């Protein structure tokens, strides 16, 4: 338990750092101290370690990813190296290769880099939803319904919307951003902070506006996890309309290259 405690310590401190956002510049510095080791460096590093040591480190990386995935928080390479990989950084590429293989072969998950600049990774589900309903109902996160509505609005409006449109839409659905919601709590925090940290949404300031205004776009996680085809089907049912009648959206939903097209809407 003392070990657990210590680890939770390091974790919460890294999380609060991210929340404040003020030390973003310093975080970037953290990452520049890590340079991807070369193939020959990895080979030499592997020779110094026993297979059991490499397996142990791989297991720790897998666990770290699984814990982060429960909250849908992307894993930053800098955090991963600093808190988990540590002195094994010379064989980082080999450990990531093995962790990725484990997710694929054991868990049916795929590890993907959603942000090549900041080196952020997430897990997505490789298994399609089954035809029949599963006999075991997994607990679902009610916030995902809220997210689906917001992503639908953004998609139908051409990919980017001013924040007021989102707040007004939610208000019409009796989810008033000005009030504390029974299920979701602080709506603005969930939408403009939590969904953004999870990389479901992007929330960017519109330049030269007074007072300050922001706009929403799809985040990188939404791009790989949420199927636009499914959103159009949902809109079609809602409006009793053929999804093809939204020709631009229909083209976009079906134009995405096969390799990155998400099969399942979400887990």
């Amino acid at each position, binding site marked *: *338990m003392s*070990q*657990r*405690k210590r*680890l*939770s*310590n390091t*974790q*919460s401190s890294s999380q609060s750092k991210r929340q404040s956002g003020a030390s973003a510049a310093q975080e970037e510095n953290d990452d520049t101290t890590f340079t991807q080791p070369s193939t020959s460096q990895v080979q030499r590093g592997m020779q110094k370690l026993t297979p059991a040591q490499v*397996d142990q480190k*791989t*297991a*720790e990386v*897998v*666990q*770290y990813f*699984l*814990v*982060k995935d*429960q*909250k849908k928080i992307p894993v930053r390479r800098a955090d991963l190296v600093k808190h*988990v990989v540590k002195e094994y950084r010379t064989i980082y590429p080999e450990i990531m290769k093995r962790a990725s293989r*484990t997710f694929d*072969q*054991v*868990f*049916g998950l795929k590890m993907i880099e959603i942000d090549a600049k900041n080196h952020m990774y997430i897990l997505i*589900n*490789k*298994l399609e939803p*089954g*035809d*029949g309903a*599963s*006999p*075991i109902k*997994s*607990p679902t996160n009610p916030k995902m319904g809220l997210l689906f509505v917001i992503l639908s609005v953004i998609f139908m409006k051409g990919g980017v919307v001013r924040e007021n449109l989102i707040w007004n839409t939610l208000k019409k659905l009796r989810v008033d951003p000005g009030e504390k919601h029974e299920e979701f709590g602080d709506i603005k925090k969930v939408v403009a902070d939590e969904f953004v940290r999870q990389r479901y949404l992007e929330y960017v300031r519109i330049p030269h506006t007074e007072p300050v205004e922001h706009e929403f776009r799809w985040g990188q996680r939404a791009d790989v996890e949420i199927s636009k085809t499914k959103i159009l089907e949902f809109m079609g049912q809602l409006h009793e309309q053929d999804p093809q009648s939204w020709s631009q959206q229909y083209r976009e939903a079906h134009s995405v290259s096969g390799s990155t097209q998400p099969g399942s809407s979400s*887990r």
Partner: protein
Amino acid sequence: MSRQMGDSHRRFLQTMMANGIVDEQGARTLYQYCCETHNTQHAPDKLDDFIDAINSNLQPMFMQIRKGMSEDNGHQFYALVNMTETVVTRMSSDYADNELELFRKTMDLIVVSENGTASSTDVLNSADTLTTKKLKKSETEHLLNRLVHDKWLCENRGEYTLSTRCIIEMEPYIRAMYQEQIKVCHICHNIAFQCQICENSTCGIKIHNPCVARYFKGRAEPRCPACEDFWPHEIPEVRRPQSQSRR
């Protein structure tokens, strides 16, 4: 050596990860569902074999799907457990330091108690003795609700017990931490919290309530299996797993 897994195994594992614990009946139907979804062979009597294949692949990650009994109704459950203390675990990501300390104090109270329970009053009182960061009364109540919601504790009329999932997952830890105080069921040899105790002071063996029900079922005069003294407690009825309703 790890055995080959298919998508049916992976789907089963994903469901276990999302739920933490599933009863035996649920695991059987889930096994069938996963096999049918991926068109693989399903043999009703091969559930444990199917789970062994998953476990052989989970072992390098120090995870396991483990079977255990509910102290409430005697039914079998399968829980996905984490066997390591050196890496981040599910709980440490969900709870703050002082919250984990309170959980440990609650566990202390439950382990040293006669009947495997801790009253909410005692838990609230122990919140005053936290060394990390004190919790207010309302915060403690909120935390207890979360621990129940996350299936670590069970609550019944203000009395808290360790959940089946908690006992299955924490058993090695509890055995190591509480060597002296630990009670083991005379029938099934697993840790016993909620149990009946032989009143012969030189004997004093413990038996889980569901094990009592099974052991004494159909015996005219209940006697202690260890010392042969009369067993003075009320014998509970055997609770059958609810078979799925077929209409």
